[in-house]
């Protein structure tokens, strides 16, 4: 008989079970989860990269299309990691099937890790689809493969965690679309996806420095192009801090039972 905590092996099985369920969900509804980002980002590639990009010329020392491709891939990763966890976890709450896990011995941090890994899987899947599509518009080669992967994983983790917290507080489906509309989209659009922050006045650069998306986009761009607006080590450190902070908040809320236990 095991002691008063779940065996490590059992915890791993529980984690894997949640992850598989999450992957099964977003691949089952691929028309809602995998196709839309491919279409939107494809249109961005076409319009900003090819049609308008030629007129813009250079940005940050690169052709405009090459400059925005990494930013757009990152945008897709962020939006999809967030959306996956917020809508899946909220729909689990809404349909009450979250109770299946809550009555079981699965510890809170495994629940959190399982859903976050599911969001990361969707973020990475969409990232790969969009990267593959970018080959139709430009031919990038990746300068620093390991760094690029690391940034994608960390970024999708940060936004999966944020989506999880959003879903914990959400009571209606509206509550999981408010944050993406009013917070996420502005952060992404002002986070250096479309322009180099060198274009901004000093004050604008300071404000931008508070935007976590800036670090993600720039580190990712550095991984691919080898150039960045920000210090890479500092950016990685910030990503680590954001992940740890959000993880702590999500775990605290889970322990408290916010939005889950009456």
């Amino acid at each position: 008989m095991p002691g008063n905590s779940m065996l490590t092996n059992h915890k791993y099985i529980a984690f894997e079970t949640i992850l598989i369920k999450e992957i099964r969900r977003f691949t089952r509804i691929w028309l809602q989860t995998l196709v839309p980002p491919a279409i939107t980002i494809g249109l961005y590639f076409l319009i900003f990269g090819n049609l308008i990009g030629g007129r813009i010329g250079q940005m940050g020392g690169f052709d405009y299309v090459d400059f925005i491709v990494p930013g757009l891939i990152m945008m897709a990763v962020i939006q999809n990691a967030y959306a996956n966890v917020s809508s899946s976890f909220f729909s689990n709450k809404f349909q009450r099937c979250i109770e299946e896990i809550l009555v079981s011995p699965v510890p809170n941090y495994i629940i959190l890790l399982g859903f976050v890994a599911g969001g990361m899987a969707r973020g990475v899947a969409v990232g790969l689809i969009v990267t593959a599509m970018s080959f139709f518009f430009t031919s990038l080669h990746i300068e620093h493969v390991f760094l690029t992967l690391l940034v994608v994983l960390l970024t999708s983790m940060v936004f999966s965690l944020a989506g999880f917290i959003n879903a914990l507080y959400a009571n209606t489906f509206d509550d999981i679309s408010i944050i993406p509309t009013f917070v996420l989209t502005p952060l992404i659009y002002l986070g250096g996806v479309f322009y180099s922050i060198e274009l901004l006045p000093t004050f604008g650069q300071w404000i931008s420095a508070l935007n976590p998306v800036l670090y993600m986009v720039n580190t990712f761009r550095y991984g691919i192009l080898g150039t960045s607006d920000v210090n890479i080590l500092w950016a990685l450190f910030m990503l680590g801090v954001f992940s740890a902070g959000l993880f702590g908040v999500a775990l605290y809320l889970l322990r408290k039972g916010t939005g889950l236990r009456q």
Partner: protein
Amino acid sequence: MQSISPKNAISIRGLTKTYANGFQALKGIDLDVKENDFFALLGPNGAGKSTIIGIISTLVRASSGAIQVFGQDVATHVYETKLSLGIVPQEINFSQFEKVGDIVITQAGYYGLRGDLAKQRAEKYLRKLDLWEKRDNRSRMLSGGMKRRLMIARALVHEPRLLILDEPTAGVDIELRRSMWEFLQELNRNGTTIILTTHYLEEAESLCRNIAIINQGQIVENTSMRKLLDKLARQTLVFDTCDELESAPTFNDPDILCTTIDSHSFEISLSTSRDINGIYAALSEQGILIRGMRNKTNRLEELFLSSLKN
């Protein structure tokens, strides 16, 4: 406070619950259910039955009080107590988009079972609950009764020692209800402690050995089914006659009260301790031919109502 016996599957002491809106749903519940018991929790709508089950399963947080499952505190021995607990909730709570088989296999995963073992368990319980043919259907395509059975299969996949069912037979047809009863009885014979809530009093009467009645967040009766039934002092019998009644039958026994219902029927109320042969003799003497007879109300129902009154 009584001391807690280790032979109890569940022991509840001083349990109270005040919901966030200030409503006090439980006002100090003490309850013991013995290992291997088949226990009924009865009470009208809103009595607090689901609240108790919610607290046992950790979906609802207690305001005060303690719960032990097989002698271990649910607050401190989370893993072990949850492992020995299977819950069948009152409301449907599985994903409408998942396949029946996946729902059960996934649940097994939460208990550390996977691969072939998870599949075998899922198959075993889906077959027992007559859902194996439906394993590849999306759960929303099941009928209401099938959905309830799916929740039972799901609750059993980790083979818990204590199974708690919150109105398992609501919306299940009579034939299926009987087969569900047999299934639960077999489970109980094989050593699983079972607690159920129900509004079908007949169900409690035919399945359960012990019973607690709860009303407005308090236990008003906690005894064995046998003793409870013995407590019921009087029963009412309804007689249908072959011919039109010319006058109400008369009995020269003050314990027997008779009232006519209509021209072809009347009812008689008498102590449960008495035999009813004398009534037939008296009716024959008066030339009244009886076509049929039945118990007016479910005995347990009467008892239930009388428990609630005091």
